[in-house]
């Protein structure tokens, strides 16, 4: 019951603010609504008993990436942008793509329901109490089976950092 309330609360907030994010004219407002969406998603993670992903989402997404976004918006905020057309003329393309994607997922959902025995609308997960301690389990997996991807990810971040610095540096 509580699970349900929490899920629907966070899911509602996430979808609502995601919609607002895409439609707001002001980039700063979009950023604020994206932050709300991300926090709501973090709530979903917590409801899924994934504490580490929850806090990683809060620290990295909200405390890191979104701060970067807001920083850039503050730097480049042009009031002119507020009075320009905010949508490009691809409305029909967008509608088509979205509908196609929605149809795909819908078909997937619907067809998987048909398969007997699969029935993934039925909860069959481990009860929350029996889950191993999340951080420890995650760390064990990350530094054991996925050590190489982990290192690759760190190299990726390094490359991204260097790239960002090179890009944003003032050419004098």
């Amino acid at each position, binding site marked *: 019951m509580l699970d349900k309330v929490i899920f629907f609360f966070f899911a509602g907030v996430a979808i609502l603010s995601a919609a607002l994010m895409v439609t707001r004219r002001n980039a700063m407002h979009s950023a604020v609504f994206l932050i709300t969406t991300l926090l709501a998603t973090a709530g979903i993670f917590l409801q899924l008993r994934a504490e580490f992903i929850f806090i990683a989402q809060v620290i990295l997404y909200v405390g890191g990436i979104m701060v970067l976004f*807001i920083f850039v918006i503050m730097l480049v905020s042009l009031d002119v942008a507020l009075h320009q057309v905010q949508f490009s003329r691809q409305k029909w393309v967008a509608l088509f793509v979205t509908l196609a994607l929605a149809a795909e997922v819908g078909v997937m959902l619907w067809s998987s329901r048909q398969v007997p025995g699969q029935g993934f609308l039925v909860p069959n997960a481990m009860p929350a109490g029996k889950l191993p301690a999340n951080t420890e389990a995650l760390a064990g997996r990350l530094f054991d089976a996925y050590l190489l991807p982990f290192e690759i990810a760190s190299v990726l971040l390094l490359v991204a950092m260097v790239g960002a610095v090179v890009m944003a540096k003032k050419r004098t």
Partner: protein
Amino acid sequence: MHPTLHAVLVFLQTWWVELVSGVVIVAVVPLVAGYLVLMERKLMADMQARLGPMRVGPHGLLQPIADAVKLLIKEDIIPDHADKMIFWLAPVTSMTAALTALGGIAFGPSFLVARDINVGLLFVVGVSSMGLLGIMLGGWASNSHYSIIGALRSTAQLVSYETAGGLALISGLLLAGTLKIRAIVDAQEQYGVWFVFLAPVAFFIYLVASIAETNRAPFDLPEAESELVAGYMTEYSGFRWALYFLGEYTNMIVVGAVAATLFLGGWLRPFPNVRWMNWLDAVPALFTAAVGAYSVYRAGKQPVRVQVWFMWGVALACFVVVLILAAPLVVAPLKFMVPGLNGVFWFLLKITAYIYLFMWLRFTLPRYRFDQLMHLGWYILIPLAIVNVLAVGVAVILETAYGWNRWLAMLLATVITLAVALFLLRLNDKRAAPASSATPPEEPSAEDFYAG
């Protein structure tokens, strides 16, 4: 029973501790923050050869309440062209983040505010870092140059020093081997030593970084009064301003609590495992009794009857607390309460000492310049913190895998880190040409500028 009602009751039954502590945080912390301000003003006055607030209540003891009332009834000004929604949202964000972070902190072995979640310490640090959003948004929404420069400075400063502070925390966490608040303190009890002695460099880095994170002097550039008026808070007044202020002081409590938990042994008393130091258990009661006695002594010297009564009230409160603290020591069946009650006392004492250090530094030191601040953060603290993480990691491995003496291993780690620190300082001295004067003053190219 109606199913919904039943669900609500079940909910209350499972979550009442969290709900109550949430209410307590929201209700009590603003008061505590107000009295922190009073404490700061009194200490500042003492160090500056003056008296500080004296008018409201005996020795200004009611000043925070008067201030709060004043702020509440002040006109709420929103500047023209300010983004109203974000202007409204920003201070709330700042304060909410700070208060929520407080939810992850345990004030004693049996006074955990919220659940002891799996990512405890990370939760506190992560959520409190969200206060930065409030600062940025507020600075942007105010539509003022001072605000936006303050917000930009604040962002740059907080991002850099959070990195250093986070790395310093990792050094401590390597020793604890867990993120859970209670397990961290238990680990220190097991080791029989506070982590500050095992990893002093990490503590020092965290100290400096936490001063910067809370925007306190000498790192208070985002709100440097003499340069940016009040930084991101310039356009705020009244209650919104109070929310920012509240967030800032709550943040001080949060970083103090994190430092106390990870480095200063949490709610453990000094020498937690030494039997003959058990008399330290009586210190909380005696200390409170001394405060009460002093209040009685001062009560006779108050000029106004209301103030006399007030001092008596303070004394009475102290004595009640003494009774609560002393009862478990004397009455055998209540013995189990000793660690809990004393734990809270020690924990609060440690936080207070940490905050006192903040204040002391504020009254003593001039302010860094922005480039010097960034230089200190990126060229000294962050490399040092990285080296410290490596050194502590190696020391832990030496201890666990190779059976070294713990102290020897930690000493080695500290020495390595300090050597690197010396090297870094040397390196920085060499190219110490202050960045500020690095660019030669350009030729006057500003005729149009002088035109108007």
